[in-house]
């Protein structure tokens, strides 16, 4: 007995160090990125730069939270970038006023109404994804690919390909304040970052502490077993796509508020960045494994890396190369990790 424990002890330590490195890889990657760029550029390690970078990350972070929910369920949502654009232009249209010709009036809904309507529309588009996947058995990849095209097309139709620029509203119409989301700060922290933080905390609570979170992990890990244990797997499925759509709408609002313009081509390929963040954060594309913390770290790794490359003056073409390399590296580590855990006695 004593022989076993003696020989096992050093082995166990080595293994746990490796395990720590693997499990915390997104965290270590983030530290390495911050350290390297702080060394390369004096402007990188400053509060103002971190806040700017964080408000950029907020967009991807919001999309990534929704994507995490879908990926935990064993699905994928390719439509988030398009929903972001669609919701952005819908919000833009409402801010510029909706003309109802028959009645000869132009409606200027207040900002809160714009936000509510926009998020509802995002959720509805997400729910369409969910129903297609859960009830009509369309593979998630195909369903959300289709919705991606449709949403983008509708956004282009609504705007005729143009961009809404007058989003500020005016005092006499009572619809000012749209800029607040993207450019204001509370205690020095951008609102967008706070929104991300709030969404992340809620998502974390839901995943780790609520029955719904347990249902989600179970149905992503083994849908048949979850169903036979009484988990409402279809409800879970529709809900995650709906939430992903709603979060895309929130991201769309934040982005158009930051830019004070809403264009139909906004958010192109953002779905891929969101997937990348989730994967770098250690989630398994097969479902059932992944955390909010990991996904947030993944989003910050991507955001801080590309911002750093811009600051030190590396061409944007190289940024693409680096981002791709980081994604592959992350998945490589995923497979090393699962390879280690997959043995059978």
């Amino acid at each position, binding site marked *: 007995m004593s022989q076993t424990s003696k020989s096992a002890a050093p*082995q*166990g330590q080595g*293994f746990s160090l490796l395990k720590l490195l693997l499990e915390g890889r997104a965290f270590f990657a983030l530290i390495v990125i911050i350290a390297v760029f702080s060394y390369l550029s004096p402007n990188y390690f400053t509060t103002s730069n971190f806040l700017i970078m964080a408000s950029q990350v907020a967009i991807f972070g919001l999309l990534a939270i929704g994507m995490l929910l879908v990926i935990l369920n064993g699905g994928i949502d390719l439509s988030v970038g398009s929903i972001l654009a669609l919701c952005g232009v819908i919000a833009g249209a409402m801010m510029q006023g909706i003309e109802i010709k028959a009645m000869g009036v132009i409606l200027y809904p207040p900002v809160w109404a714009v936000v509510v309507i926009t998020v509802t529309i995002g959720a509805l588009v997400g729910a369409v994804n969910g129903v297609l996947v859960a009830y009509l058995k369309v593979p998630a990849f195909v369903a959300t690919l289709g919705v991606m095209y449709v949403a983008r097309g509708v956004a282009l139709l609504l705007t005729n390909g143009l961009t809404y620029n007058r989003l500020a509203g005016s005092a006499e119409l009572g619809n000012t304040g749209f800029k607040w989301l993207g450019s204001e700060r509370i205690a020095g922290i951008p609102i967008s970052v706070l929104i991300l933080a709030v969404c992340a905390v809620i998502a974390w609570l839901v995943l780790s502490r609520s029955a719904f979170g347990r249902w989600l992990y179970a149905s992503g890990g083994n849908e048949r*077993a979850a169903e*036979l*244990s*009484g*988990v409402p797997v279809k409800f879970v499925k529709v809900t995650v796509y709906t939430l992903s759509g709603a979060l895309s709408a929130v991201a769309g609002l934040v982005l158009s508020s930051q830019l004070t313009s809403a264009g139909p081509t906004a958010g192109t390929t953002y779905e891929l960045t969101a997937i990348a963040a989730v994967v770098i954060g250690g989630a398994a594309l097969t479902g*059932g494994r992944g955390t909010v913390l990991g996904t947030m770290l993944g989003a910050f790794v991507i955001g801080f890396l590309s911002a750093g490359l811009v600051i030190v003056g590396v061409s944007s073409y190289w940024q693409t190369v680096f981002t791709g390399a980081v994604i592959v590296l992350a998945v490589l580590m995923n497979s090393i990790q699962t390879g280690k855990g997959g043995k059978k006695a």
Partner: protein
Amino acid sequence: MSATATKPDTAEVVLAARNVAKSYGAVHALKGVNFDIHRGQVTTLFGENGAGKSTLMKILSGVIQPTSGEIILDGKPVAFQNSTHARDLGVSIIHQELSLAPNLSVRDNIFMGREIMGPTGVNFAEEEAQVRKLMADLEEDIDPLTPVEDLRLGQQQIVEIARALSVDSRILIMDEPTSALSATEVEVLFKVINDLTSKGVSIVYISHHLEEALQITDHAVVLRDGTMTAWAPRAEIDLNWIVRNMVGENYNLGSPPDGYAFGQTALSVQNMVLPDPGGNPYNVVDNLSLDVKAGEIVCIYGLMGAGRSELMEALAGRYRQQSGRIELLGQEISDLSIAGRIASGLALVPEDRQRDGLVQTMSVGQNLSLASIGAFTRGLFTSRRAEKALVADSIKRVTVKTSGPDAAIGSLSGGNQQKVVIGKMMATNPKVILLDEPSRGIDIGAKAEVFRLLADGAKQGLAVVYTTSEVSECLSIAHRIIVMHKGRITAEFGADATKEMIMAASGEQHAA
């Protein structure tokens, strides 16, 4: 302990393991085992789950490499690089877990990785002809072009066996080849094994079904906790010998619990009809009626395809297309969802625990609490304390051997995994529990514990319905034995039935 003590005559040994050990980190799966395979004979390996049987077989077939020790093939040490290397040297294995590609046809599965090449690509016609011949030998009516996913589990196992046979190996390792086979199919397999051995092929056979293995074995080897505890030729062994060496206990699955009266009718099924979910024009459950009282244990015996699993799943709410009436304690539940039926007190322990029972990405504790999340949810959030208590309670109740509730579910042995599935459903406090083949692929010790658990539950007023394809399991704790054949109940017996009576009613042609 010395290697020479149990070393048999090496002249006729074709493949041998010498002091083979295998460790996974701190876990020693095998601790220096000697094992001999004799030419043209059947060597059976007995042992409980986790005794190291599968590990040893994987080493002998090159799937994994031993940590220490050597493999001797035809008297010369050999190091298998991988299973293909071993196969090329004449050793092949039928794995316990099916390793078929469900989307490919039977033919393509059988020739996967060693396709017969002709001048214009793969010679499909020749492959198909060979598969037809194999299926004829196995007396199985399976078309070579059927996709594997359309086959029953038992037929898939036949395909797995056919694939190993098609290689023309000198040494064939069969790890639990019969777990999903009917008695008739097992007999055909034994005939095939006899043919093979008479041609000089050596067989290594592993089965939890001891009586079955005793029919064909020439030598028996017993493993326990990674070491070999006994070795003997067929003439010197019997069932008691094996069990004694495996577990050190007597082989007893219990008897029907008595000393109490049954309660009211807990489950009542009236005229249930379920069309084949695969779309075939017949009913897999055909106008079946059944009443089970509280405290009663009913065993449903039937062959593969008798409709047992479909009946159980239909009762649990898996299918939408069934007709008929299902009542639970007088309450109609036919329209309820799976979750609704669980909530009203009907729980199913499914047949295939890997596919339908466990969530592999979750811990032991999370699997145990999965069906009763509502019980420890307070308002919006789950209560960790309540969940912990529930999990601890379940682990104790079903006696799961685990390092803790946070252990990975995959770290448990088959028997303990099964107990987790049972514990999960027991935690919902059911009035009626349905168990579809609860003893599939688990060892005697675990089997007896599962049955004892069910008997204890029945004493508390739980109505228990379990299915089995092993007659000995009918004649254990069941108060009533129901025989199913082609979706109908063909016979009903009390606990005093005999094996012969049950088998005769199941439509099985059995010589013994």
